[in-house]
C-alpha cells in the first residue's frame, strides 16, 4: 500500500473556505435572523422561505446557476469583472460567495429559533438598564443565544467542509486555488484510488471529530439557562 503523498493544500483551502464562510455567515446571518425574530412585517414569511430555498436545489445545479451568475457575463460576475478585471467564478472569493449562499439556511435557521426562544424580556430589561439596543444585543442576546450560535457554526462549518457540488462547479477544482479536500477525496474515489480516499476520509473524520469534541467540551463548561 502506498501512502499518498498529499500536499496539504486542499485541506488548508477547505479550512480557510469553511472558516471564512462561517464568519461571513455569522455576520450576515445574525441580522437576518434577528430581523426575522423581531419583525411583524408580512414579508417575514417570504424572507424566511427564501433563506431555506438554496437547500432545495441539487448542489451541482445550484453551482451551475451560480456559475452563470458569477461568470464574466453574469449579473454579478459581469459588473465585478468590469470593475476589477477579474471574475468571481473559479476564484476563492467565488467559492466563498457560493458557500455562503448555500450554507445560509444552516446559520440563519438556528439563530432565528434561538432569538425567538429568547423572547423580548431580556432586551427590555437591558434597555431599562440603559443599554442601547445594539449594546444589549451583544451583551445579552448573543450570549443567551449561545447554543444557537453553536449549532449554526457546527452545521455551517461542517457543511461547507463536506459540500463539493457547488464548490466544484463554481470553483473549477483548480489545484492550489479552489481545490478543496472534499473534491480531493471525491476525485480519489472517482479514479479508483480507494486507499488514498480512505486515508483522506478517515483523516478528515478524525480531525473533524476532534474539533467537534473540543468545541462541545468548551460549550459544556460554560453554564447557562435559568428558570
Amino acid at each position, binding site marked *: 500500500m502506498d501512502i499518498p503523498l498529499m500536499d496539504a493544500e486542499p485541506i488548508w483551502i477547505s479550512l480557510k473556505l469553511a472558516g471564512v464562510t462561517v464568519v461571513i455567515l455569522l455576520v450576515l446571518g445574525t441580522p437576518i435572523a434577528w430581523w426575522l425574530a423581531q419583525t411583524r412585517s408580512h414579508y417575514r414569511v417570504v424572507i424566511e422561505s427564501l433563506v431555506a430555498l438554496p437547500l432545495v436545489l441539487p448542489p451541482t445545479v445550484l453551482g451551475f446557476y451560480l456559475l452563470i451568475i458569477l461568470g464574466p457575463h453574469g449579473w454579478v460576475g459581469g459588473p465585478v469583472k468590469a470593475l476589477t478585471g477579474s471574475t468571481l467564478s473559479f476564484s476563492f472569493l467565488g467559492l466563498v460567495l457560493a458557500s455562503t449562499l448555500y450554507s445560509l439556511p444552516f446559520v440563519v435557521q438556528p439563530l432565528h429559533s434561538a432569538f425567538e426562544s429568547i423572547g423580548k*424580556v*431580556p432586551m*427590555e*430589561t*437591558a*434597555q*431599562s*438598564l*440603559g*443599554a*442601547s*439596543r445594539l*449594546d*444589549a444585543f451583544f*451583551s*445579552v442576546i448573543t*450570549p*443567551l443565544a*449561545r447554543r444557537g450560535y453553536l449549532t449554526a457554526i457546527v452545521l455551517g462549518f461542517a457543511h461547507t467542509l463536506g459540500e463539493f457540488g457547488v464548490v466544484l462547479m463554481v470553483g473549477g477544482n483548480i489545484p492550489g486555488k479552489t481545490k478543496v479536500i472534499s473534491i480531493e477525496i471525491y476525485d480519489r474515489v472517482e479514479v479508483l484510488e480507494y486507499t488514498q480516499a480512505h486515508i483522506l476520509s478517515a483523516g478528515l473524520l478524525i480531525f473533524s471529530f476532534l474539533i467537534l469534541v473540543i468545541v462541545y467540551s468548551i460549550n459544556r463548561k460554560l*453554564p*447557562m*439557562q*435559568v*428558570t
Partner: protein
Amino acid sequence: MDLLEAKFKIDYPGFNLDVEMRIPSKGVSVVFGPSGSGKTTLLRCLSGLEKPSLGYLKIDGHVWQDEESFIPVQDRKIGLVFQESRLFPHLNIKKNLLYGYQRTFPDERKLQFDEVAQVLNLENLLQRRPEKLSGGERQRVAIGRALLTSPKLLLMDEPLASLDMQLKTEIIPFIKKIEKEFNTPIVYVTHSMNEVLQLVDTMVILKAGKVENIGPVQEVFSDVRLREAIGDEQLGAVLETLVTEHDESFGLTKLDFMGQVLHVPRQHIPVGHSLRVHIHSKDVILSTLSPAGATSVLNVLRAKVKKVGELKPKGYSVDIELDAGRPILATITRKSLSKLNLQPGQPIYAHIKAIKMMHELEGL
C-alpha cells in the same frame, strides 16, 4: 415645576388603560389597586417600554413623550424593578448588579456597589448564577441592579413582595434615603399597607385601568369613597406627628399632632423625629364630652364633624368624616350615631382606641 404629568391610553382586548395624572415629581408615589388594575402597565408606560397609542409624559417641565417625540427607554435614565426579577441568566450576580452601573457615566453614579450589596445582603452571593438563588435573593439583586444605575426616576413594581420583615425593615429606609439624598422620585407599586405607610407621600389609586383617586397619603386614607380600593380595614387616618418626649416609667412616647398630644408605646426614635401613625376608622370612638381622668390612657383628639355618612340599610355602622386639622374617618355604630345626633361643624372628641401602625419617617 416639580411635577410629573402623564397621560396614557392603551387598548388591550379585555382591558383598557386610560390614565391621566399629575403627581409631584418628588417623594414616593405609590400606585395602588387590585390585581389586574393596570399598575404594571402604567409603570411600563412611564418607563417607555410600552408605546401607547396615545401617550404624554412630562417631568419637571421636560417632555419625555408626546405625539411627536419619544425618548426611548435606554435614554430615560430610569431605574426599573420588574415584578419578576428578570436577572440575566448568563451573568453572575456581581455582573448582573454592575450591568446598568457600567452603563452610567461615572460622574452620574451616586451609589456605590459595596454599599448596595451590603444593604441588600448580597455580599455572599456575588459569584453565583441567578438560577442558584432563592426567590427573595433574586428580587434583591433586581432592586440593587436598578438602584446602581443611579436613576433620575425609580419605578418599582412590588419590589419587596417576597421578602421577609427583617429585610424589609432594612431595605425600606435605604429606599427612603435614596429618595431623599439624591432627590430621586419613586413610583412604587405595592399591595402592602405596611410599605405604603412607611414610604408613601402620594397615592395613585387605580381601578380597572382608570385613576380612581390621587392625593397625599394623609387624605386618601380618610376618604370613604376609597373603602373598596384601599380595604375596609385600612381606612381611618394617617397622621404625621413629632416625637416630643419619652416617658420611661410608663413606657410611653409622647407625640405632637398639630398641637394635640398622642401617646403611643415607647418608640426607639429620638425626640424631634417625625412619626407617621395609622389609625383605623373602627378604632375611633366619638364622644361629645371631653375626656375624664379615668380614660386618660386613651388618646383623645379634638375635632369637628365634617360629614356624616349614609346609613346603609343593613349595616351596623356609619362613617363620620372629621376634621382635626387633618382629615380623620370614624366608623361608629347606628346606636352611637342616634345618641350623638351629629351635625356638620359640631365640635367633637375622637377617642383613639388603638394606633395600629407606626412608622418613622426620618432617619435614626
